[in-house]
């Protein structure tokens, strides 16, 4: 059997195209691309609704503190992601990743954390918006706007 240039070119082409098809199918199946149901915990629009009430109470611009399910938001990837989403939704209001602010936004999913962490940070509840979204009065060390 002769394996001349046209045959080699055709074989390579078929292999390359096969590779493309296999990788496309693999990605589509592995990442469930065509599964149209989205995970609500990853949906930004769901969070936007969750924060709607507190957004109306907060100034459009300024600085406030933040407290999530961990005292340090960068300690846990999901808490960190949650903080980034809150900042994205509430911008141009700046959400500092610390509870040492006169006004602090509490954003909790874990019941135990929402009872323990504000107490430990010395925060006083102003309003509970439900669903783990709370507004606290914090330390007076820093002004809420600069």
């Amino acid at each position, binding site marked *: 059997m002769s394996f001349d240039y046209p045959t080699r070119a055709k074989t390579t*082409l078929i292999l390359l195209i096969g590779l493309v098809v296999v990788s*496309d199918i*693999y*990605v589509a199946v592995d990442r469930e691309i065509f599964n149209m149901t*989205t995970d609500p915990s990853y949906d930004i629009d769901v969070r936007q609704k969750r924060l709607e009430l507190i957004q109306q109470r907060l100034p459009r611009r300024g600085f406030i503190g933040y407290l999530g399910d961990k005292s340090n938001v960068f300690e846990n990837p999901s808490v960190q992601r949650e903080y980034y989403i809150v900042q*994205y939704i509430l*911008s*141009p209001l700046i959400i500092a990743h610390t509870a040492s602010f006169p006004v602090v936004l509490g954003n909790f999913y874990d019941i135990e954390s929402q009872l323990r962490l504000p107490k430990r940070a010395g925060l006083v509840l102003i309003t509970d918006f439900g669903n783990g979204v709370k507004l606290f009065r914090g330390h007076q060390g820093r002004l809420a706007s600069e």
Partner: protein
Amino acid sequence: MLLIFIWASTSLLIGYLCISLLPLSQIRKYFYFRLFLSIGVGFGICSCLTFTGAVIVGSMTRQLLVADAVLMAVLVVLVYRSKMSNEDLIRAELSPNSVPSSALQPAVRICFVAALAFSLLVFIVLSYKNPHGEYDAFAIWNLRARFLFRGGPHWGDAFSQYLSWSHLDYPLLIPTSVARGWVMTGNDTVAVPVVLALLFTFGTVGLIVSSLSILRVESQGFLAGTLLLGTPSFISLGASQYADIPLSFFFFQA
């Protein structure tokens, strides 16, 4: 939708006109190559213009779009004048690549079209499921774009020390391009970053296909395009609105 089209086409037109002014007369013949090249050039120039305008005017308002119109008018005049003086040069160009077309060419072309259609479908589905983009998009690029657009005269808040985790030193091409689109549409619709991501993703493919078609043969261009479209993370990164795709576009453009 019309305003998004105007936003994108203004940038593309500015880029296209700038490329037409380049003294590289050989590329003037290749419409598609220039078109794909104009994505990077156009959005690059417009984002610089928007940022400079915001610094001078104090905020990102629709008045900044006057600068786009002025620039476009100047470019049209310059291109018209340069076209008149270079017409002879273009006529004397080399003939297109004289390599004979392969029998495999139609098959490669069909595969490319199929891969392109599938990739477009995947991009649309992913963007529909996740219109705000993935991690980097909402934590860096679109976040900064929101500050630039929503912040009004206080757009400088985008560079607050409290946002240092969002990499304040990162380039502003994507945020200013998105903010410019929002200024034009009047609201921060998710369609603007999605369209920008779409242009850069498929623009990279177009650039590879058109440039290889010029430098080698058409079938090699389509084959390279098919392979790129078949790269698993390429389309998903594009739909996630990550900057890796525009970066790859500029690497390739360079």
